[in-house]
């Protein structure tokens, strides 16, 4: 059987900018895949190609083995896009009913509203929704057709902590139904929490494709964070066993397999540290180590 979604050597150029530099990716039915990467890494472009919203400059994109613009493929696919809008004056339930009519065997409206957690807003017009509620509406539109595959492009971006928690629960509810999900995120804990497979993209290329655990295992080290009283010169860090560095003003994040050695050497070089923290490697540190820079 053909993969649910597929990219074969796909490249994409916007003018002179090479957004994708040859990506090959198979997403099988039933997989939950997080595409992880910093802004501008090529996540949204990859999804746009698989959805047929954009055409690859070279290479191929397939949806259920078909051209992504094929209505038969589209009818098995739901999507939540970062930048898209809905008619302001339609009510939530009307909007869902409208989108249900685009699909051959949609879910009952009441079930969609329940899964998206929109019970209290079903009769509100779209323009009266908060940011979090609007995200839920987009999620409802993505799942209302009972599709086999849904794409969620940055589903929790811009949400406050509480809305995010609640929304991730909604997504988990949908994952439990055994559907195929592709989500993009730059929230690393989100990928860890939701996905069984993480595809890390940076500068238009896949730099890792593994389970969250495997990606974490790639970095055996620790994260050392501190604030330095004076700006560090390159000489201060020279020769230290560091795999990645992130510098924001005088705030430093170092990823290292030997935190004790690094700290001993920093003290010896007369670096005055405050707010020192040494923590274990999570997905975020894995990402740091994989790309050499921070995800956010």
């Amino acid at each position, binding site marked *: 059987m053909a993969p649910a979604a597929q990219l074969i050597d796909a490249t994409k150029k916007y003018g002179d900018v090479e957004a994708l530099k040859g990506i090959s990716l198979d997403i099988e039915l039933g997989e939950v895949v997080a595409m992880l990467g910093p802004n501008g890494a090529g996540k949204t472009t990859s999804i746009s190609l698989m959805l047929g*919203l954009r055409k690859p400059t070279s290479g191929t994109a397939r949806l259920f083995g078909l051209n992504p613009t094929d209505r038969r493929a589209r009818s098995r696919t739901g999507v939540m*896009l970062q930048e*898209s*809008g809905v008619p302001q004056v*339609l009510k939530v339930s*009307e909007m869902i009913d409208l*989108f249900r*009519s685009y699909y*051959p065997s949609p879910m009952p409206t009441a079930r969609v509203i329940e899964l998206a957690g929109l019970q209290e807003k079903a009769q509100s017009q779209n323009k009266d929704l908060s940011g979090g509620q609007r995200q839920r509406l987009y999620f409802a539109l993505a799942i209302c057709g009972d599709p086999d595959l849904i794409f969620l492009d940055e589903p929790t971006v811009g949400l406050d902590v509480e809305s995010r928690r609640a929304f991730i629960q909604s997504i988990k509810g949908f994952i439990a139904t055994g559907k195929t999900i592709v989500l993009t995120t730059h929230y690393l804990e989100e990928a860890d929490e939701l996905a069984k497979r993480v595809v890390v993209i940076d500068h238009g290329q896949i730099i890792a494709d593994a389970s969250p655990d495997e990606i974490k295992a790639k970095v055996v080290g620790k994260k050392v964070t501190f604030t330095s009283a004076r700006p560090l010169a390159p000489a201060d860090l020279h020769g230290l066993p560091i795999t990645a560095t992130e510098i924001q003003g005088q705030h430093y994040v170092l990823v290292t397999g030997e935190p004790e050695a690094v700290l001993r050497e920093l003290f010896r070089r007369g670096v005055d540290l405050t707010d020192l923290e040494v923590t274990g490697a999570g997905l975020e540190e894995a990402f740091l180590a994989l790309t050499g820079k921070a995800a956010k």
Partner: protein
Amino acid sequence: MTASYARMLWMQFRAELVKFWRVPANAFFSLALPLIIFIFFGLRDPTSPYAPGATVSTGAFVMASMAAYTVGSVMVFSFGIGVAVERGQKQDVLLRASPLPPAIYLLAKVMNALVFSLFAMTLLFVFAHFAASVNLSAIAWISLAGRLLLGSLAFIMLGFALGYLAGPNSAPAVVNLIYLPVAFGSGIFIPAQFLPDFIRGLSPYLPLSPFAQLAWSVLGIKTDRSVEGNLLLLGAYAIVFFLLAVWAYRRDTSLKFT
């Protein structure tokens, strides 16, 4: 497997109707404004001849003119501004990724505009009948509405073209800037003989001129062109605007979706 196109169209059409009704400005400009203009021009001695020696009354003449103005404006405004605003809100992006064929989206808009035009005309006809004693035969009422709905194709195409050419914020200004001078220039509000010379020469060829002539000739007014001539001119406009709309649509989608 794909969903039934008929059901998609029905649901899309319903959504268009609801969207149109819930914006008060639409009801005002399409329903109330034509009645207000009719009161200004049509209720001054409505049963007198509209021109010296004419058999057609002022009320009937202004009613037919306003019917043409209204149908044209519903088409140009609902498409021109509607499509531009929806593009501005990026509604087209989500629809583009959905299984909805673009043709059904556009067809539903056409159906909504036709239904709304018919409603607006009916309101105007009923008002003119009671307020200005306009009496036409049943056939004439139907023929008036039917000719205007048929001829409105040219304005539907113009609306689509403007909807894909104009920016979401500038669309209302652009549409007004084009439609209002064309309406005045076509002699709908003021007879063409009162217009400056250089416009008077152009007047019979502006798109609202054959459209209004179609309406006037139902009343028995002798017009410059025959019904066939007017339909032919409107058809030519429909083709030109259609090509412009296709070009504008392709330009817009090729920027966003390639």
